[in-house]
């Protein structure tokens, strides 16, 4: 019981913490004192962030341990998930500017009625979002299905910025819950599989706080396999195409989808854990290619984590995935301290990303050696 209480306290603390990082040019200053603190006490702020991230992972490991020993009930899981979702929903998307790009792209398409692949936000003179949004000098970065889907949160925003943040977060939140349901379903109600994905701090931060659209892409990928298992072939095909046309990363899943499609057509039983293992390997490949385009962003790791939750994996693989999740979430710390992405920051980012992974790897290696002796 105490674990849950302190976990909720951490969630509330992290949600509040996010308001310390509100952009100075943002038209609404929600908690000015906190934002001022964030701007003045950069070292302390970074320290608090790092401590909270570590605490998140400690709680995560605790929940996984409870799930492994089957000491967490279905009711408790639902309660924990819903509380997490509600508390993090009210947080400010402090760790990424992508949500503002989603909002701006939707606005260009549905408010200004311009082609977002042709017109950049910066070309809309007098657009208020230009004061604080990043990458305003880029045309739409995402696929057409994402642009079409954003019609719904755009309509709900009533052209108000705060409402837009909430509606986009709500939109992403539904897909998070949908993905959790599908993982629960595919894993045959395995609590460990569900919690491995659903409570991973990287997934929580990048999905429920930063509202990245990766979860929407993953949801449709899972949904396509779910529809295949129900022999809804046309809908399954539509779902996988929607997924691919959100962020293109799931294009690697098309051959796997084709195999499952073919098997389902011939009424052959599909070994889904094996299918998800191949999907996981495919997503690793795409994830490793990401630095060629830009860099290895933490939210890209959601692609791997989602499929890894549904495959049979050793403790070593689970540990390495968790260690890399931790490292990727620490990437924001140097920026928080220096408030710049240049100079020494890229080097520190690389170090903090790989340090937990490398440490886990070395520890596991020596443990293994020691066990052999």
């Amino acid at each position, binding site marked *: 019981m105490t674990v849950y209480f302190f976990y909720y306290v951490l969630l509330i603390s992290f949600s509040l913490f996010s308001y310390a990082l509100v952009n100075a040019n943002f038209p609404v200053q929600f908690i000015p004192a906190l934002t001022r603190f964030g701007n003045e006490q950069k070292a302390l702020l970074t320290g608090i962030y790092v401590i909270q991230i570590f605490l998140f992972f400690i709680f995560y490991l605790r929940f996984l341990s409870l799930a492994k020993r089957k000491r967490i009930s279905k009711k408790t899981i639902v309660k924990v998930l819903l509380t997490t979702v509600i508390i993090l929903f009210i947080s400010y998307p402090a760790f990424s500017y992508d949500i503002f790009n989603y909002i701006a792209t939707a606005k260009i398409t549905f408010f*200004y*009625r*311009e*082609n977002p*692949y*042709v*017109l950049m936000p910066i*070309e*809309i*003179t*007098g657009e208020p979002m230009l004061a604080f949004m990043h990458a305003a000098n880029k045309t739409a970065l995402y696929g057409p299905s994402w642009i079409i889907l954003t019609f719904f949160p755009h309509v709900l925003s009533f052209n108000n910025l705060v409402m837009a943040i909430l509606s986009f977060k709500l939109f992403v939140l539904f897909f998070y819950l949908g993905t959790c349901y599908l993982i629960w379903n595919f894993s045959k109600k395995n609590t460990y599989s569900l919690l491995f994905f659903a409570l991973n701090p990287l997934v929580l931060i990048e999905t429920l706080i930063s509202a990245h659209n990766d979860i929407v892409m993953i949801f449709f990928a899972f949904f396509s396999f779910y529809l295949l298992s129900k022999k809804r072939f046309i809908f399954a095909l539509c779902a996988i195409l929607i997924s691919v046309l959100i962020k293109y990363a799931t294009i690697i899943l098309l051959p796997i989808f084709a195999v499952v499609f073919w098997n389902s057509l011939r009424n052959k039983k599909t070994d889904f854990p094996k299918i998800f293992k191949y999907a996981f390997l495919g997503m690793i490949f795409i994830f*490793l*290619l990401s*630095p*060629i385009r*830009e*860099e*290895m962003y933490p939210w890209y790791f959601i692609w791997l984590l989602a499929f890894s939750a549904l495959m049979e994996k*050793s*403790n*070593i*693989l689970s540990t*390495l995935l968790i260690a890399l999740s931790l490292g990727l979430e620490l990437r924001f710390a140097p920026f928080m301290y220096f408030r710049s992405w240049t100079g020494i920051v890229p080097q520190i980012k*690389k170090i903090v*990303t*790989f340090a937990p*992974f*490398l440490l886990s*790897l070395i520890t*596991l*290696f020596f443990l*293994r050696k020691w*066990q052999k002796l």
Partner: protein
Amino acid sequence: MEERNKNFTILKLSFFILPFIIWLFISKSFVFASEYVLPYPSYMPNHKLYKIRQLVEKLTQYYYFGNLSQYKYYLKTADKYLVEAKTLFEYRQYRLAIISLERSDDYFNKAGLSLLSAAQEGKKIDQQTETLSAAKEKHLSVLEGLLNSEPETMSWHEENQPEIVLDLKSSLTISKKQREIVGSLIN
């Protein structure tokens, strides 16, 4: 035992992919800056792919929905035809040059009209006006150069066709005038 070996393989594999990941993390970024520049000439008339180029051009017109997007399309195409006309003038293909020049005029006018429509819809067009003014100046300098270098008229005789006199000066002057009108309309 088998499980242990499997785990050890994962560990070994992880060590193997680690340098690869680190290598992938080394990324560079480039910044480019440019003024208003005209494009290089594309496929010229009489080329096998010229018709295809025109077809693609027509089709992409629908992709550029929205007044400001259309403005970009029209201006880009006007630039393309102006460069085409200039090249044709240089190769003394006067008849084709005039056709290209007329196309460029048409697209330039449409670019201006798109901007006016955008303004009527309440969109701010300051940046686009500035770009169109810069484009106008560039077009005028090209046209001025052609006026100075090309003959005023040219007798043109095509196979199985009667000889015609092409009034190059008048065509170029009209083109110049049109740019000036569009320029004054948007300012």
